[in-house]
């Protein structure tokens, strides 16, 4: 029997005129590390809150672990762990006090479920008497995750856990998520950072309340419709201008030290472009074909939707 962790059917949510979710349908399997990838305002938080039984949808249905998010919200609340977008623990309580409080709320103890959070909590345990308000971003995040895990949830909802956290802590956080997945917990995580998509089993790319694509990161990348080229020269600003004026240009975006370029023709005659750019006095020119990343795909989907 197929028993999905999440089953979402034509879910709708509006705030006045703004349609935050436009009939979203989605299925997530048990044990998956599933990413909701999209910028602010895409609808990620609304979706997670509906799934976490904190918001009522305006239409459609959703089941978490086979339970309806409206009628059976109490059952779901017992089985899920939830970490909201901003740090939502008691800043005037210490690390240990926060953890013990949440253990008590779920009628368990820190000792009993210590094995679940050991990997994460051990990193902040030396500071357990420090107040939560005085912790760094990375430490707050570890504490919040520990609190969300302390009752052995079957499914974890994490709303933008890595936003505003330094890159090092972000890496560490994803390592922790991978370990949790090995314990069989289903993890739903949202993020605005496209590069984090590659760390998920499957991802949904969300923009303007609609899902543009759902697949494994590898498969999403394979759907990229054309060849992608990375181009670099000594003056990036002029290069951008000149590429935009190039007659066969399809898209050109700044991407780190390179520009990512696609041509209207699938395969770019590199020499022709090189000649064009050299005529425009670009020096130290570099043109190479590269594999697209999730962010390239995201932008390609966005262009297609418009």
């Amino acid at each position: 029997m197929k028993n999905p962790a999440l089953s979402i059917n034509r879910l709708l949510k509006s705030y006045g005129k703004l349609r935050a979710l436009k009939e979203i349908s989605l299925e997530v399997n048990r044990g998956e590390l599933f990413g909701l990838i999209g910028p602010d305002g895409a609808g990620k938080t609304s979706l997670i809150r509906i799934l976490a039984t904190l918001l009522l949808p305006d239409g459609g249905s959703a089941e978490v672990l086979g339970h309806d998010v409206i009628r059976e919200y109490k059952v779901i609340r017992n089985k899920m762990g939830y970490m909201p977008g901003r740090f939502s623990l008691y800043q005037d309580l210490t690390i240990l006090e926060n953890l013990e409080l949440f253990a008590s709320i779920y009628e368990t103890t820190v000792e009993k479920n210590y094995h679940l959070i050991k990997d994460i909590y051990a990193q902040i345990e030396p500071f357990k008497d420090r107040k939560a308000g005085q912790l760094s971003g990375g430490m707050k995040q570890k504490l919040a995750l520990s609190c969300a895990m302390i009752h052995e949830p079957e499914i974890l909802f994490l709303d933008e856990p890595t936003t505003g956290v330094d890159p090092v802590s972000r890496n560490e956080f994803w390592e922790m998520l991978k370990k949790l997945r090995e314990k069989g917990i289903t993890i739903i995580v949202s993020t605005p950072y496209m590069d984090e998509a590659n760390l998920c089993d499957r991802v949904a790319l969300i923009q303007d309340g609609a899902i543009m694509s759902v697949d494994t990161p590898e498969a999403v990348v394979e759907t990229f419709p054309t060849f992608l080229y990375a181009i670099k020269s000594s003056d990036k600003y002029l290069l951008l201008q000149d590429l935009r004026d190039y007659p066969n240009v399809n898209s050109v975006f700044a991407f780190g030290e390179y520009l990512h370029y696609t041509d209207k023709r699938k395969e770019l005659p590199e020499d022709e472009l090189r000649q064009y750019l050299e005529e425009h006095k670009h020096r130290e020119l570099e043109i190479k074909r590269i594999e697209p990343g999730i962010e390239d795909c995201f932008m390609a989907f966005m262009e297609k939707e418009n």
Partner: protein
Amino acid sequence: MNRFLAFVKKEFYHIFRDRRTLVILFGMPVVQILLFGYAITNEIKDARIAILDKSKDHLSVRLIEKIRSSGYFLIEDYLNQEVEIEKLFKEGTIKLVLVIDESFAQNLEKQHATNIQLLADATDPNTANTLINYATAIIRNFQAEINSGTLPLTIIPEVRMRYNPNLRSVFLFVPGLITIILMLVSAMMTSISIAREKEVGTMEVLLASPMQPGQVILAKVVPYLMLSFINAVVILIMGKFIFGVPINGSLPLLLLESILFILMALSLGILISTVTQSQQAALLISLMGLMLPTILLSGFIFPIENMPPALQVISNFIPAKWFIIIAKSIMLKGVGITYFWQETLVLVGFTILFVALSIKKFKIRLA
């Protein structure tokens, strides 16, 4: 149960770790009672008075001696004529003048009744009231002393307030103050503390947990109930030992009624918090919606019977009004529950109403 206790413990942590909360909780009642108390009572000891004894007989001399030895009054001046009174009051040093009519002893002995006039400078109405009360008490005492004969003797003190004739009892300030402080601490602090959980986002995590709304609310109520009760006791003790405000009736009954009033205020605070999202909004509603009506319309400052009829009707919806009546009855009149069971029922009704509304309004989701 463990869940509940852990939650109560957490509330105490919040309270004791926030200096501002602590100051409001314990500093404010003390400061308020001292302010109110001294504004009213700092001249009670050795108040300067004058006496116009037109009788100068053996009984009037005894009465004057009694007044002098009471310790409350300094007899600054003995007058000979009524016209001097006006002059003294205008100078402002004398707060009270005792006028003993002619043939004081004679009237008492023959007609078994006589008059004494007490004239007070009521520019400071509270002081005037206190002085009158003290003087009246001494006169009553004196009356009891001389009342050894077969026929009862009555001295009828005739009180005239100069400059501000309609005065009310001074001791009202303690029942009123208890009411205001309990209202403030209970309603305002709970509404702010719940609004804070919404504001910083912790409410979102609590909602996502299996914690029942009722448990969250109850756990908020318990610490504030205890602290408010301590406050009430502190005020009563200060009232009694610093300012001599009596508790003539049953103390346990007074404390029980206080708990009822605290519960009412707490449920009102919770009701406020269910309709506000931020601490600032909760504070504003508590101050504008609760404090002002409580102070202005409860009869604490302005006598209800002097209000326009429309305001008199509105005052019935101010819970504090009913508690002030109850507290006044117990503390000053010394009467029992049979005299104010109706007021008690009104408070019970308010409490049930607020709790029901809160439960109905409390959201199990974010929006």
